[in-house]
């Protein structure tokens, strides 16, 4: 892709003796849409605050264009931020909110290069209006910010940051307070704006769908360490461990043994797959996505199980199937009643084999199906996110 813009080297951070960032290393390319994704407390917001200059890391370096900027205050960084709750100035109208950064700027006087001068009012006016038009808020200049809807406030916040022409825009869960429909629209809008202005976006979210929709690169974090870095497709199709597999989308994660390359054993049966590079008979975690499972008559099935729960989801049924005590989630368009015996078939490309990790055995069982769904629905109340 393009050249490297930001590098985080060995970042450590702790609050009250609790390590929030544990030797984090990450580089971010120019003009890239990068998402830091993870559950509450994984260190994603802290990482963003360190890049923005609001928090100093305990140890480690922040490099911007190859220069160490640890000690550069936020107002001198070529980085702007869209805050979680927008943080619009309540005493200023929309125009003045957007103009704030420009009014702070000083540049060398053309007639006397030693002196610094403010931007001319005409230029400020022009740039603000241009930016408001770019975020579809033309005609809103004189509105009070508290008279705007959540989506409009959001766009003022983006305009206020982008009008300064930063090299990097940081976004801290900016869509958390919006309702589902608006959030989907804003995801597309954000991606469009990013491509239009052509700068780096670093986006923090706990919402995996948001991350998959917008990002060029996703960084999955947990407990202050990076679990996986990759494109949305990589992360979804080739999760590195049980944590990533579980956090991104739905996954059945089953104990297995890699018999040989392209052959994995589960439930005492062998399944052809596409993975290789493991030692012979190495214990592994096997990920099977609920949509990659075909329901077939019992006699044709690679495995047979009993349906214990059926939920209608509109596009598909979520059914829970008991395979010898371990419950799987299967998404299917065919209805199977509770109690039915069914067979399943999994194509080799529907099976993804991962090395054992410290997350093995923690995820991927749907025995407590309904509970798990509740957990997924209530996201991180302390970070202010709420799902409709």
């Amino acid at each position: 892709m393009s050249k490297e813009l930001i590098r985080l080297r060995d970042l450590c951070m702790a609050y009250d003796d609790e390590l929030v960032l544990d030797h984090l290393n990450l580089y971010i390319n120019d003009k890239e849409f990068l998402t830091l994704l993870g559950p509450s407390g994984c260190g994603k917001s802290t990482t963003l605050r360190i890049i923005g200059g609001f928090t100093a890391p305990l140890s480690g370096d922040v490099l911007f264009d190859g220069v160490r900027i640890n000690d550069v205050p936020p107002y001198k960084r070529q980085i702007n931020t869209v805050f979680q709750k927008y943080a619009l100035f309540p005493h200023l109208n929309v125009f003045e909110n957007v103009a704030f950064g420009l009014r702070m700027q000083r540049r060398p006087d053309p007639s006397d290069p030693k002196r610094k001068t403010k931007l001319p009012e005409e230029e400020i006016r022009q740039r603000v209006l241009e930016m408001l038009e770019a975020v579809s808020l033309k005609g809103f200049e004189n509105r009070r910010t508290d008279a705007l809807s959540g989506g409009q406030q959001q766009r003022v916040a983006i305009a206020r940051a982008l009008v300064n022409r930063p090299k990097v825009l940081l976004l801290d869960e900016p869509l958390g307070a919006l309702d589902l429909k608006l959030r989907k629209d804003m995801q597309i809008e954000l991606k469009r704006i990013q491509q239009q202005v052509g700068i780096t976006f670093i986006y923090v979210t706990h919402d995996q769908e948001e991350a998959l929709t917008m990002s060029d690169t996703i960084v999955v974090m947990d407990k202050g360490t990076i679990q996986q870095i990759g494109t949305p497709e990589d992360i979804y199709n080739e999760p590195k461990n049980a944590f990533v597999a579980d956090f991104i989308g739905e996954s059945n994660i089953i104990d297995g043994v890699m018999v040989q390359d392209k052959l994995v054993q589960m439930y005492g049966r062998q399944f052809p797959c596409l993975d290789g590079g493991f030692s012979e008979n190495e214990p592994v975690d096997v990920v099977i996505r609920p949509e990659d499972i075909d329901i077939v008559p019992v006699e044709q099935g690679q495995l047979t199980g009993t349906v214990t729960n059926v939920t209608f989801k509109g596009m598909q049924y979520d059914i829970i199937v008991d395979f010898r005590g371990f419950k799987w989630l299967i998404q299917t368009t065919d209805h199977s009643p509770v109690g039915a015996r069914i067979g399943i078939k999994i194509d080799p490309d529907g099976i993804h084999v991962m090395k054992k990790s410290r997350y093995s055995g923690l995820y991927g069982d749907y025995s407590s199906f309904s509970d798990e769904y509740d957990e997924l629905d209530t996201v991180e109340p302390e970070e202010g996110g709420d799902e409709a």
Partner: protein
Amino acid sequence: MKPKLSRFAIPYVIWMALFVVAPIVLVVVYAFSNDLGGFTLENFSKMGTYAVVFGRSFKLALIATLICLVIGYPVSYMMSREGERFQRVAMVLIMLPMWINFLLRTYSWMSILENNGLLNQVFQKTGLLSLYNSLFGTSLEYFPMMNTQGAVVLGMVYNYLPFMILPIYSVIVKLDGSLVEAARDLGADGVNVFRRVILPLSLPGVLSGITMVFVPSVSTFAISKMLGGGTDLLLGDLIEQQFLGGAYNPQLGAAISLVMMVIVVVCMVVMNRFGEGEEQAVIL
């Protein structure tokens, strides 16, 4: 839809009617009547002679309010930036004098400011007095501090300073920290963060602080009587004299009260208009 008054509000309505509305009505009625009870405007036409008292009262109250603001704002601001523990302790220290009776506090200032009071003794013992005398060729035995307008202003500042600090502090401490971060993010250094974000957003607190100091200062009579020695008459003293003193004339007293009230209300309305756009300052 007209909101209906809950029956639980009835006691408060009666209270307000008895102790707020009725007295004001009485003041208005008295102000427009002569000692026989007939209607007259004489009370107001007489008031011209007291213009100098009005002027002095407003001047001293204004000075006291200004000093309170100059001291109170930085104190509130710095307090809000300290840790929670410090803030709690500081708050108690600021409130502490208010647990002691107002008159007692003012009395203690008398014994501090007196000619042979605490301060003058300190000045004598430290040689500050003789230094002053030799510098300016005077032969003072003490600095006369009691019974001056300065002492009156000091009394006002001392007594009403908490009323300036509290509203400003409570506004600043509630200020959303992310606004400050946003300003810094957008290129504002410390001075600009203060000037462009913190100051304008704390204006409502400043306005209610000014109100809460100015109004009692302009109408005070105990402070001027005790620390000013009653030589420089203030509005409060003037009104008191009309009701309790030798110049017994409650009609005139009511008229002066009414005029003072109107002037104060007009000042406050103008000031609130000035700070409009934000939450309105509390008029107390």
